[in-house]
Structure formats: structure tokens, C-alpha cells
């Protein structure tokens, strides 16, 4: 399926095709399972993006929300001094550095062990064509990135001629 045809499918999905072209495309969709599958994929993607773009509704007014943040910022500027509090329980003075040490050790261990199976965010940036499709098969541990670019002859020059 060439790039123009894929664009036609996208236009059909967006309701941008004239009625006659839409009718022809519907007939073609009935006959071509690949096109049908692509249309379904495009619909799924649009649905996902629609949900992703859903706004977050605050349970309070905008002004109240920002005033809370402002109060937090202002409260953070005040110096907090509590002299002599730790002296009531002398053992507590060891808990702070000990806790810090424990946190550092745990963080280090996690960082070292994490190199065996960390799952960071995966990103993708297709520079020449935004139409790269990524497919992940978890069962076989395979990731496929299908590129509409380089189109036809770019990378495939080693392909044998018949």
C-alpha cells in the first residue's frame, strides 16, 4: 500500500473525503484486509489520542487552586527553626544521618541492580517522515518499526535485481 493510499484512508477516517470517493473506498475496504487492518489501527490510535488529550478537571476553582500553590511557596520561604527538639530524645540525632545513609545505600543498590532490567521511557524521533509505525510483540520480544522512509530505493539498493 503506497503512501497516498494510506493518506486517503486517513482522510476517510477524518471525514474529509467526498461522498463518491468514500463510497469507492468502502468497497475497496471490503476487498482488502490490509487496508481494513490499517483503518482499524488508525481508529485505535485516534481513540487513544483522544483519551490522552482529555483535560484534568479540578475539584475546585482555578483561583483557589493557584492560591494554594502560592501559599505553599510562601510557606516554604519561612525559616523553620525548632531549637532543642532533638535534645529531648538524644538517640534521634543518629536517626537522621542513619536514615540518610540507608536511603543512599538503597538508591545506589537500586541504581546498580536496575541496570539489569530497568524500564525507562522509550522515545522515538523520526526525522524524515513522521509516519513511522511501531509494533511490539511481547510474546516473542520483538519490536518492529515500520518506516515509510526511506521509500523504495534508499536502503534497499543491495536488494537483488530479478
Amino acid at each position: 500500500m503506497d503512501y497516498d493510499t494510506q493518506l486517503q484512508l486517513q482522510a476517510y477516517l477524518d471525514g474529509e473525503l467526498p461522498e463518491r470517493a468514500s463510497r469507492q473506498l468502502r468497497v475497496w475496504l471490503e476487498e482488502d484486509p490490509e487496508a481494513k487492518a490499517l483503518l482499524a489501527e488508525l481508529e485505535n490510535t485516534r481513540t487513544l489520542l483522544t483519551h490522552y488529550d482529555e483535560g484534568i478537571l479540578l475539584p475546585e476553582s482555578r483561583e483557589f487552586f493557584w492560591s494554594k500553590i502560592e501559599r505553599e511557596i510562601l510557606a516554604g520561604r519561612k525559616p523553620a527553626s525548632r531549637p532543642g527538639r532533638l535534645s529531648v530524645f538524644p538517640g534521634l540525632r543518629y536517626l537522621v544521618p542513619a536514615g540518610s545513609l540507608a536511603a543512599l545505600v538503597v538508591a545506589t543498590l537500586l541504581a546498580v541492580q536496575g541496570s539489569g532490567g530497568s524500564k525507562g521511557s522509550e522515545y522515538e524521533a523520526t526525522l524524515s517522515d513522521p509516519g513511522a509505525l511501531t509494533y511490539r510483540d511481547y510474546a516473542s520480544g520483538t519490536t518492529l518499526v515500520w518506516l515509510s522512509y526511506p521509500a523504495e530505493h534508499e536502503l534497499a539498493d543491495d536488494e537483488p535485481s530479478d
Partner: protein
Amino acid sequence: MNSKPIAATGLAWAVLSLLVCSQFTEKAIAADPGLKLEAQLIWGTNDPQSPDPSHKPVDSDVLKKLAALPLKWSNYFSVNRKGFNVPLTTTCKVPLSEKCRMEVKNLDGTRIEIALFGRGEQVLKRSQALPKGEILVLAGNAPNDTAWLVTLKRIE
């Protein structure tokens, strides 16, 4: 006055913590053998044989993974195959054909950053984890209803 003992103890703990952390990190870096990877340029077709006798059918493990993908080709021939090692945080350039090459960076011992170039132009840059046994396939259409594929597999 308890502030000075607390500060001194805190400083001592902090120094000790940094020493412990640096020991762990040094050991982790020193023990890193790098990522052993294999890249392949593959031609996908429905023809039973390649007209080029130098092309060999891909290994069964790769074939099995390609067969699991929603691709319409039944036969895959290896055009070029390169094994290489990428030490931690370094980038390895892997030429696969005259016009196609890839650059693979070992980000943290598990994750890689891969850049694919066609005719010297970068066409894709992507980062992902690549555990042993998993495979990354970059692919596109080729003439006569065939396909080109670049696979990247982690060996060790």
C-alpha cells in the same frame, strides 16, 4: 548544645555514604563487559530463493521472530551481518551497506539508542531496552513488493 555533634555525625555519615556509593559505582562500571550485539540487513520476499547466491536465509531464531510480526513476506535473506560490542556509554558505527549504516549507543548497559542512516541522512533515532534474546526490527518497502529489514539482536 546538640547542633555540633549532630552536624559532625551527619557529615561523617555523608562522607561514608559517598564512599560506599563510589565503591558500588566503580565496581559496576569495572564489571561492565559492554553489550554484544548483532545487526543484520535482510531482504524480505515471497520468492522461494534469492537471485543473489551470496544471500543466505536468515537463522531460524530470527525467522521465527519475523514470522510473528504482521509482515506479508514468507522468506527472508541475510544480505549482510555484523557482530559488534558496545561498551557502556559509547557509540558504535555499523555500516550495513554502501548506503545504509546504523549507530548504536550503550546508554546504561540495558538500554540502547539506535540511529539509522540512509544515504548519510539520519532517518530514525530511537532508544529502548534490549534484553538478551529480544530483537529490534527496522523495516520498510523495497522494489517489486519486497522489503528491507535491519535487525538488531542482543547476544550477551
